């Protein structure tokens, strides 16, 4: 027998539930606050460090100055905080056991994963754009003291700043995918940091032409290329790099969906 109405639960309802779930735990608030404060603060500090030591820098480093990449350097911290937030969105369900209630309410696994992805994408894109623009304006204010400031109207800069937000959003989705596969908070965070931060360190040691090419195609080097105002020899073209990182993210998410559907909760 069935009580109540037989109204079919919809994707919109799953989305509303995931939205509410995201904002009803404190890690969301602290994670987002840390992202904004530390990312913007670091961007300004790094700009300050550059400006202060400008006169001691060799000419080659001065020539390599890119107001986009240099002004958005603090976003690397946002990679960590939004990455962790992306991980917790899924691993928190497993560490607390709430995955059982969640799946009882939304047993269609693909629908649940999609709802989590949409919520995380919206939140991290808004946060990413916010910190990217704030970092840009803060660092340009510092660069202005030495007449190095750039404006969004200059070639490639608006794309670089928008790209910073897009990159951070994609990092969050990449992390959610890894967490769905790994299902443990510590393991997933290790995987995220390993792939995004440790791989490029190894990459830098690879010799020769192929080493340099490999380095360009690593997830974070490829993804961060979109924050360069101008194309550089050390990285892929901005949109190409972003496309490569988007490809990695799509692969991770496809594996995550396959595993999530197939495995016992």
């Amino acid at each position, binding site marked *: *027998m*069935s*009580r*109540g*109405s*037989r*109204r*079919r*639960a*919809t994707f919109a*309802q*799953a989305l*509303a*539930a995931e939205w*509410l*779930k995201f904002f*009803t*735990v*404190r*890690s969301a608030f602290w994670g987002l606050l840390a992202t904004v404060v530390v990312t913007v603060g670091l961007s300004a500090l790094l700009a300050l460090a550059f400006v202060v030591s400008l006169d001691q820098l060799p000419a080659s480093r001065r020539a390599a100055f890119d107001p986009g990449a240099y002004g958005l350097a603090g976003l690397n911290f946002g990679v960590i905080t939004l990455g962790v937030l992306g991980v917790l969105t899924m691993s*928190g*369900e497993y560490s*607390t*056991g*709430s*995955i*059982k*209630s969640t*799946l*009882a*309410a*939304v*047993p*269609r696994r693909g629908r649940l994963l999609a709802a989590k992805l949409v919520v995380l994408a919206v939140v991290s894109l808004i946060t990413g754009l916010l910190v990217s623009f704030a970092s840009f304006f803060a660092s340009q204010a510092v660069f202005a003291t030495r007449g190095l400031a750039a404006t969004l109207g200059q070639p490639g800069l608006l794309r670089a700043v928008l790209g910073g937000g897009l990159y951070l959003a994609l990092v969050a989705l990449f992390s959610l995918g890894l967490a769905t596969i790994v299902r443990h908070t510590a393991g997933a965070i290790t995987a995220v940091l390993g792939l995004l931060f440790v791989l490029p360190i190894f990459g830098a040691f690879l010799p020769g032409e192929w080493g340099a090419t490999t380095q360009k195609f690593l997830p974070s080097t490829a993804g961060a290329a979109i924050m360069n105002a101008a194309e550089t020899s050390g990285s892929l073209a901005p949109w190409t790099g972003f496309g490569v990182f988007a490809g990695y993210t799509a692969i991770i998410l496809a594996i995550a969906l396959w595993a999530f559907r*197939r495995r*016992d*909760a």
Partner: protein
Amino acid sequence: MIQAQGLTKVYGAKTAVDHIDFEVRPGVVTGFLGPNGAGKSTTMRMILGLDHPTAGRVTVNGRRYRDLPAPLREVGALLEAKSVHGGRTAYNHLRCLAKANGISPRRVAETLDLVGLTEVAGKRAGGFSLGMAQRLGIAAALLGDPGVLLFDEPVNGLDPEGIRWIRQLMRSLAAEGRTVFVSSHLMAEMALTAERLLVIGKGRILADTTMSAFIAANASSHVRVRSPDLLALASLLTARGCRTAPAERGCLLVYGVSPAQIGDLAYAARLRLHELSVVQPSLEDAFMRLTADSVEFHAHARDAA
């Protein structure tokens, strides 16, 4: 109505649930009884679609759980009490579940009131005692006013007042025509609440019957004898072919004879009797007899005594 056909779950080399068929019908409380590791939780998890069956299928109201249009409106389940994100308040936990199935916020407040958690609704679930967490789990199960309810070990962590409350709740839910399926390892509890019984051991269904029929079929009454001349009495009874079993100090359990026969025998042999009483069989006796060889982890008799 819950129906399983050939339901099987294999984990690696271990068959947790082995081709079981059963039906849990509405209107009565059906107890799900079995030793630890018998496959109770695995079966419950497969009903909810949390674990995928290796073979066979299990349906609720004729559909697999994942195919139910709005699952919480048809099935409510209390699995482990800690199925909650400890950082979320009780109210928000229920509101999130409600949203996913289009259940009104008013119903959230109603269920919180029903389980007696209204006062702590704004507190984070992580700080809840086991009893409070259990009540929150029950609130989540009742949220969608479902016709089918699953309770896995519901009295765990509840105080005596809470145990009485959930006993009453389960009976009234069944009386309203709902399907109530409850697992427990506490047999006294089961004997009090369940009308029907599904007994599982080593992944197989050992019995599917009513409580009274189960006890009658699987346990016989016996006689407890207390005597200062116990040794002589025991050898006398054994010589007559009666099965005896030692009980507490100075006592003996005798099977297959009436108290009158034992009394006459003792009188004839001039042996003193201090107690002679018929022991009615319990669910526990019946259960122990039926599952004696399907218990997963045997304690040695000496250690257990």
